[in-house]
């Protein structure tokens, strides 16, 4: 299988010399094309930092991250913008939609930044809206939508550029269980039908159980990794719970 994301011995330190915090400690893993990977860990385990460095929002202290064979820790200026524009799709916990724009315009923004023709934009926005079941909210402004709708609009914005990698930071964090399930089913659809590669950070076992692989992080290091394989979602959920119990600590909330 072709490797989309390769993380190699990355480290990330915070603070000054006197009070150094190792958020990520020599961490390595790979994600293949078409995988749906969840990263789990208690708060403070370094999972958001990991996502931030992969998404180029933050920079690593040392180590390398390859996306599609390209070392993104070396990217700068316009190459960095181009990389974000063309290779990545972001989904945030708090949606990060622009409240001055309608749903349609928010989604279209990702394409118009790439200078796509407006007729093409229209076709693709409508298509992605169909896939994520948000056709009726397209003319609405963010403050007129529910949390679930907002997150699906944000997801639409993330996938419309056909990125190599979709990064999601606690995408269900602000949603109720029904909206969460709906969103995750859409993620599964994107993953299976459109072969989108998804890397998702969560502390919620239910959310993680939709992934095909779960990586557990503790103190900036990989603690354990489990594959879904041929299990049903329910069985996979139980396996995740087992690890969570083993991990202890905050993650017990996930139960």
């Amino acid at each position, binding site marked *: 299988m072709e490797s989309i994301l390769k993380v190699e011995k990355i480290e990330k330190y915070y603070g000054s010399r006197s009070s150094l915090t190792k958020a990520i400690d020599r961490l390595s893993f790979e994600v293949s094309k078409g995988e749906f990977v969840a990263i789990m860990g208690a708060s403070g385990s370094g999972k958001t930092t990991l996502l*931030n460095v992969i*998404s*180029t*929002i*933050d920079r690593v202290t040392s180590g390398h991250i390859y996306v599609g064979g390209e070392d993104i820790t070396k990217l700068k*200026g*316009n190459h960095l*913008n*181009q*990389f*974000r*524009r*063309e290779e*990545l799709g*972001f989904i945030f916990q708090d949606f*990060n*939609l*622009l*409240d*001055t*724009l309608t749903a349609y315009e928010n989604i279209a*923004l*990702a394409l*118009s*930044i*790439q200078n796509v023709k407006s007729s093409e934009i229209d076709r693709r926005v409508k298509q992605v809206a169909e896939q994520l079941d948000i056709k009726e909210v397209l003319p609405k402004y963010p403050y007129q939508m529910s949390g679930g709708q907002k997150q699906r609009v944000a997801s639409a*914005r993330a996938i419309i550029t056909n990125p190599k990698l979709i990064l999601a930071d606690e995408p269900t964090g602000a949603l109720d269980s029904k909206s969460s399930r709906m969103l995750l089913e859409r993620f599964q659809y994107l993953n299976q039908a459109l072969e989108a590669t998804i890397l998702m950070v969560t502390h919620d076992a239910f959310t993680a159980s939709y992934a095909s692989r779960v990586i557990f992080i503790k103190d900036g290091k990989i603690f354990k990794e489990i594959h879904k394989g041929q299990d049903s979602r329910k069985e996979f959920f139980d396996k995740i719970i087992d690890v969570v119990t083993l991990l202890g600590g905050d993650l017990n909330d996930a139960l």
Partner: protein
Amino acid sequence: MMLCKLSFKNIKKSIKDYAIYFFTLILGVAIFYVFNALDSQTVMLEVSSFTQELIELMMTMLSSVSVFVSFVLGFLIIYASRFLMKKRNQEFGIYLTLGMSKRKISMILFLETLLIGILSLVVGLGVGVILSQFMSLLVANMFEANLTKFTFVFSTSACIKTIIYFSIMYLLVMIFNTVSVSHCKLIDLLNGAKTSEKIKLKNPYLCTIIFIISCFVLGRAYYIVTHDFLTLQEVQDILIPIVMGMVSTFFLFWSLSGLILRMVQSLKKYYYKGLNSFTLRQFSSKINTTVFSTTIICLMLFVTICLLSSCLTMKNSMNANIKKLAPVDAMFATNMNMDRYYDKYRRYGYNDSQIQNSHYTAKEMFELFDFDITSYLKDYIEVNTYATPDLTMNHTLGSKLDSIRTQFPFLAYDTMESIMKVSDYNRVAKLYGIQEYSLDDDEYLIVADFKSMVSIRNIALESGEVIHLFGHTLKPKYTSCQDGFLEMSSNHINTGIILVADSVVEEDYLVQNYLIGNYKTTDRKEITEIENRINGLSKDSKANEYLLPSGSTKLDIKEATVGLSSMVTFIGLYLGMIFLISSAAILGLKELSESSDNKERFRMLRKIGADERLLNQTLFRQIAIFFALPLLLACIHSIFGIMFAQQVLEVFGNEQLLPSIIMTAIFLIFIYGGYFLITYFCSKRIIKEQD
């Protein structure tokens, strides 16, 4: 184009939230235009060439003030735009994660600034042009000119100037924006909004100590400018209390920010009443970070108050003085018996024949120039003044001389005193409509109205100093100077005329002859014509041999006064308005952006059952405190500032202080209060929007 669309959308949204900012920009442009277009308002007025010169001088002054004003406005615009940018960190973060380049973000900001700039310039100029039409009325009123008919005036030069100045300001903003965009980090942009500012609690003891020290320093500064006024020898010396005042203002706010919360917290009954705890916490969490801007605003308000009230006082006093101090149309004075003091007059620049030919009265002198002045005058009187080297200030101050000399070492004590027959003075007084006096043969009295000289002379008069004049010994009739004057002027500048009984005076000592009277005509045009002809006489070949009497006429004095007072008024108004709107706008903007931050907090309060009335009350108090605090200290500063200004501007008189303070207060309440209300209503809207 997508970027354009984004910019448009952003502006549309911001206009709603930051209406106050756009309002201020428009006002700024309008004021800038109005004051730079003033000269065009005067074009259609019927004014003399002298007034025209004064107007030109005024315009020169106003354009240098404009440079200063543009700095103030530039500071406001840059401050406000950086401030608004901070609010949009998250938005820029999203753009960056979507892969937009920083160059493009700068481009969006550039477009926005451009749009705002064009919009505010167009609207502001429009408002300015309309306002300047009203300004015509004011200008006509000030220069007492007839506004024959209404003409629409538009000043192209002022318009171009406004556009150039504001373009430069907006260009600077663009540069600032670009620089700050290129320096920002994505992670900070995305997380910036979530991390609330740290609330550092200051050490209460340190706060108390600093509070006391700054109060002390401030008090000392107040004392220097009001009581130790005379110890200020050099112009630079005034900088010391100013710097003291500025620094102590800053530390006063700094320490207050730490103390107020603690003080009120100890009043448990009050602190836990209603939403007081919330209001106070809100207040103290912000003042920690806004001490600097509060200081700036306080100082700007202080300058505004002092400037406006002093300028208005000056204007009012001058206009009031002129009625009193220039009661007749014309006065012509001619020097007589100049040969008696040949050396002195040579030094003054008179030539030999002028000095020799100085035995004519003013009326005779005019006749020598073939000009019959009396034919133009309705009623006139001729009076004389006398002087002798045997009566100088040295003599009139008598035994008090030494103690006065040590106090005021720079007075010219050797100057001869002006002496007048009491009957002559009474004729003048009758014509002027002022107090007449009577004297016995062994008495004298002094008329004076220049305050500091009056107080010096009173020292001698109180001790009953006798003077010796032409072989007579005279004792003072009164223990103080009497009010009165001979020469017309725009201010109280009579340093003293000694009146004695007619029999005392020896005609040989005549030094000046005066011709005082009213014109037959009251028509301004004709008067101007007469005076132009008199001025024309100085070009006559006889002027080299005979000294033309020097005239001071009501019209001259009036024009000079009007020119000066309107210059002062316009500059005061211009700077005052700019300072006021700038400081009020900064406060308003700050409060509005706080309100959007506070949305969540207010929603929380609503959830725990605080009703709308209570919330609005809290909001009102919160904003009121922020507007009132700098104003309060500024008012205290101003009390001493105005006292100082009154001492400096004493010569202009300060009889009209109260009305100008009232005017200033009205002005302040109107603009500052207006900004306060707009801020409150906008904040209320922002907070309500959630439901």
